[in-house]
């Protein structure tokens, strides 16, 4: 027994010393590598749920991140590192937090300098926590849950807006739009999916809408997936609200909108907060009539930024849809590249320092000046969009607007 124990611990000891020696050797070898004319590539983890329930969003996110890396490399790589190329280490979180964790471990093992991505809030929460154990910089691409940046993790940065900011903006803008239309909307019905995202949003709306002068007629929950909205739409027809607020994922959002169209239920407006399909080019292209005049408060690119429009053209030429996952990941990779330039190396602590002091402006989002406080970009903000004549226009804030809101919906 004791001999066996001893044998194991001796083997472990040997293993750990060899590993330690290897690590030290790698470290020693690494330092001069940086000094070479064309530096060794900098590895960056690109983590998305490219399979499973969120696979469409994950694949879109990967497209954006990879495109940014290709552009940086084509333009001469990271100049502070002697033109070192960025090498993407792709990871599939398989649409689960555990999958995300496993990939972070693998990426850490592969020696990445930082990780970008995650997409879903649950994956971002888990993956950034795991990365924190290795002091590995983690840039959240989308994940909106506020807890992501309130845990005091030094390594975690979110470039986009969080849920609190989005909900506040959405409600403020709704009031403004309604006031401009002489308070056309007084009554509201909320249709939400019954998991964390939809139920959480419904709760928030139920608390805040009455304070802002709206009467909530009914709040209807439905499971994901749901393949029949006939009864929900019948209820909407019976209550006849001025405004319908859906909070659900892409498939259900599309089905609800199409069933409303089919049953000829036309409220004065459809207004969403992070609507599953409300500002998706895919929805607008496939079902233009059902999508017409739907408003959303969501992530969106800066329509007055030529770089954003050039990227849109490039993505569409590839036959892909220019969805928010694409340009948010694109911007996050550029943010990281800027930090790498200023950090002057792939040292993780220096990259974290560079991100903390970042004032990066070369992104494609309609944000204010970049400034990270506790990992959250203070300049990040959502915008309001509306589907107008088979295109998606920005209607708020005024500085980025490309159209005026059409509300109430014109009667066909």
């Amino acid at each position, binding site marked *: 027994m004791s001999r066996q124990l001893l044998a194991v611990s001796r083997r472990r000891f040997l293993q750990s010393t060899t590993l330690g020696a290897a690590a030290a050797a790698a470290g020693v070898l690494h330092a001069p590598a940086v000094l070479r004319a064309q530096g060794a590539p900098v590895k960056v983890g690109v983590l998305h749920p490219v399979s499973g329930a969120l696979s469409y969003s994950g694949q879109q996110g990967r497209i954006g991140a990879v495109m940014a890396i290709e552009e940086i490399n084509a333009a001469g790589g990271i100049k502070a590192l002697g033109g070192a190329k960025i090498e993407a280490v792709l990871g599939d979180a398989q649409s689960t937090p555990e999958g995300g964790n496993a990939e972070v471990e693998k990426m850490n093992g592969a020696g990445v300098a930082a990780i970008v991505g995650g997409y879903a809030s649950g994956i971002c929460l888990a993956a950034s926590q795991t990365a924190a154990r290795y002091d590995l910089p983690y840039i959240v691409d989308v994940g909106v849950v506020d807890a992501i940046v309130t845990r005091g993790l030094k390594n975690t940065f979110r470039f986009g807006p969080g849920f609190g900011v989005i909900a506040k903006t959405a409600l403020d803008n709704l009031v403004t739009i309604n006031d401009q239309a002489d308070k056309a909307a007084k009554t509201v019905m909320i249709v939400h999916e019954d998991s964390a995202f939809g139920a959480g949003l419904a709760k928030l709306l139920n608390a805040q809408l009455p304070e802002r002068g709206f009467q909530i007629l009914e709040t209807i929950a439905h499971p994901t997936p749901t393949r029949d909205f*006939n*009864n929900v739409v*019948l209820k909407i027809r019976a209550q006849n609200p001025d405004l319908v607020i859906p909070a659900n994922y892409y498939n259900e959002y599309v089905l609800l909108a199409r069933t409303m169209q089919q049953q000829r239920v036309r409220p004065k407006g459809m207004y969403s907060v992070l609507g599953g399909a409300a500002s998706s080019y895919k929805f607008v292209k496939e079902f233009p009539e059902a999508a017409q005049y739907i408003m959303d408060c969501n992530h969106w690119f800066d329509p007055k930024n030529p770089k954003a429009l050039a990227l849109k053209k490039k993505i569409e030429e590839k036959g892909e849809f220019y969805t928010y996952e694409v340009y948010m990941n694109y911007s996050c990779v550029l943010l990281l590249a800027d930090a790498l330039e200023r950090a002057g190396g792939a040292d993780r602590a220096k990259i974290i320092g560079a991100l903390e002091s970042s004032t990066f402006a070369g992104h494609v989002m309609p944000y204010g000046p970049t400034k990270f406080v506790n990992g959250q970009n203070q300049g990040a903000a959502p915008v309001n969009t509306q589907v107008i004549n088979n295109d998606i226009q920005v209607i708020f804030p005024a500085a980025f607007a490309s159209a005026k809101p059409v509300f109430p919906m014109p009667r066909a």
Partner: protein
Amino acid sequence: MLSSVILVPAVLNGLMTGAVYALIALGLTLIYGVLHIINFAHGALLTAAMFAAFFAHKLFGLDPYVAALGLTPLFFLLGYALQRFVIGPAAHGEDRNILLVTLGLAVVIENALLYAFRADTRTINLPYAFDVVEVGTAFLAVPRVIAFIVVVAVALALWLIMRWTDTGKAIRAVAKEKRGAELVGIDVAHIYAVTFGLGTACLAIAACLLIPTYYVNPQAGNAFVLIAFTIVVLGGMGSVTGALIGGLFVGVVESLSSLYLGESLGQIGIFAMFILVLLFRPSGLFGERA
């Protein structure tokens, strides 16, 4: 809330959903009536049929209603072969073995589908899926109206087969008195397989009626079969009329309870009814004996 503006469409919608439930229950009750077994593979076979309809559309661009013409005989043969060459021989003439064999088949089919197509949920988009027929104040979706008509036609055809053809007579004879049927020269193994084939063919039709408005994943069929079991018990085990009436009734109950209790709780009404029937009328509404 009780205004006819929403009540009438809700009842009509329920009737049309119920028609598809009835068709699935029809296959189940037919197999039960003749083979005296509960076919646990019913759900998995429905899922397989839905995948077949999905890929017929995806790969060959076949409209599900056209695909039904090919899939129905194909699934009849599949059902026939399953009973003749798998379930029958593996059962060694014992009813309780058949139960286990069908359960095993369900596990195999479901996991084979999961392995082949992963857990992704798939749908197809048809140009007419959101077209409507106006009936008074109600707008009825075209695929549901088609489903209702097809189910009525299939039920009628099934009734005619059972009533007038030699095979139908033989099926009824085997159902009533297996030994007697054997003695007058009816090939019982063949009739068993034909019945299983007919039950499976019903599933192929149901799948083609469902796929325009529903989704498919490796577990999609189970939700329907749970309801079909309720219908079979409600209508009386083995009763074809009971399955039809029971299916329509359950469809309406589901539609109304989801209207008044909410989408997430919609199926509570069905299972509450299931328990009530078991408590107070275990032989079902049209059952011959307890």
